[in-house]
């Protein structure tokens, strides 16, 4: 059995030499998760903004519901999407099961509540700050929303990165709906699980290293955004 150091060394060689199999997995992972973040942002940010304005009946209940969805177990989401997309499910005719689209759908469902809940909190805090001033300036609701989204741009970006972090690191949902099919739906997390069980630790470690690097990059991006915002005193 290979020892850890050997595996790690080999994994670095795979990364540096640009092993095609490795990189195709990485690129698919990024494609799936970035698309999911984009879709979840399109759903989550407006939902968060709507809840932040909160002037309709049941707003409080929906907020509590969305907040509790933040902790959705990925396997449960995977299972639900599987049931919907499977051949006997309501959307079975679309033939989406075991495709990257199914994985995008699952990840979008998983992270949209996170982005919605964080957006609501952010926009609400900014709205509290500007409510009287905006009323005084006679902003229409639409102008108010636009201004709030722009004023909350830094924390909203942090919310998107948080969503991306969850999506890229998630394994349960994509495993169920993607099926971990080689060259088709195999992403970093599912590959790590598979390669580890096969004993191919170097590929698993190489992917693990890249995953950790991406996590570090995402956190660094959040930190840089925070610093830039502080520098500009746009706090």
């Amino acid at each position, binding site marked *: 059995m290979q020892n850890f150091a050997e595996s790690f060394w080999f994994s670095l060689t795979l990364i540096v030499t640009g092993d095609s199999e490795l990189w195709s997995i990485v690129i698919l992972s990024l494609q799936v998760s970035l698309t999911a973040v984009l879709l979840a942002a399109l759903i989550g940010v407006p939902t968060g903004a709507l809840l932040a304005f909160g002037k309709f009946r049941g707003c409080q209940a929906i907020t509590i519901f969305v907040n509790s969805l933040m902790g959705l177990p990925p396997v449960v989401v995977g299972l639900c999407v599987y049931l919907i997309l499977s051949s006997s499910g309501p959307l079975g005719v679309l033939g989406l099961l075991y495709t990257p689209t199914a994985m995008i759908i699952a990840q979008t469902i998983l992270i949209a509540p996170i982005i919605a809940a964080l957006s609501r909190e952010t926009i609400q805090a900014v709205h509290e*700050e*500007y409510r*009287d*001033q905006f*009323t*005084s*300036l*006679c*902003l229409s609701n639409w*102008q108010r929303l636009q*201004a709030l989204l722009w*004023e909350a*741009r830094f924390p909203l970006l942090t919310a998107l990165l948080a969503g991306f972090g969850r999506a890229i690191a998630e394994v349960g949902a994509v495993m169920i709906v993607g099926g971990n099919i080689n060259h088709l739906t195999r992403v970093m997390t599912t590959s790590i699980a598979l390669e580890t069980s096969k004993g191919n630790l170097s590929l698993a470690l190489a992917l693990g290293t890249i995953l950790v690097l991406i996590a570090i990059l995402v956190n660094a991006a959040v930190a840089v955004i925070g610093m830039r915002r502080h520098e*500009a*005193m*746009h*706090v």
Partner: protein
Amino acid sequence: MSDLDVGICNVTLSFGDQLRLDIPSLDLDPKRSTMILGPNGAGKSLLLRVMHGLSQPDTGTVNFPDQYEDRARQAMVFQRPVLLRRTALANISFALRVRGHSSQDARRRAMTWMMRAELDHLANVPARRLSGGEQQRLCMARALALEPKILFLDEPCASLDPNATVAVEALVQDAIDLGVKVIMVTHDPAQAQRLGSEIVLMHQGRIAAKQSKLDFFNSPQNYLVSSFLAGKPLLSNIKEPS
């Protein structure tokens, strides 16, 4: 009350079982600047908010002469500067664009007001990086750029040093000279004397006195006014000594 006055009629506002505002009648001359004086918790800021429509009274109405009615003809500067996370210039041009000015026109007008507030050298600095005094001047410039008929000022100099206070007061005076009806809350009698034409003293949510500046300082209407001017605390059960 004449149709030309800013009139408050039977306004009451309670928080829980506490009556915070109780004003049967108050008329303010739209041609003269009004200073609202009073101790903390007297209801000065609340009255200003009710007049500007930021708080709804439980009962009563606030009436404005025709051309003052629309909130778009009014502007307000708050005690703590409220500025957008943009440059100083963009803060003013944003307010102008909201009011329908084209972005080029908004920018040009904004720059004019930056100059009048002597902030033009800071036009491209993020607004929140300005000092407290500069921020409040920027808020004044933004309010004046909207060319309001009525300008509500809620203790705009409350946390400013004397130099910054003088700069803000100069802008208030500019507004008065331009014919803007200024209604300003302050707890500083000296400031009220410098800027006001008519003075309203509030105590416990009620109007304790309303006099012209000259009368207010020279022949106080009642014991509350003379106590306030003498710097005595206005206690809740204050009574005129017999």
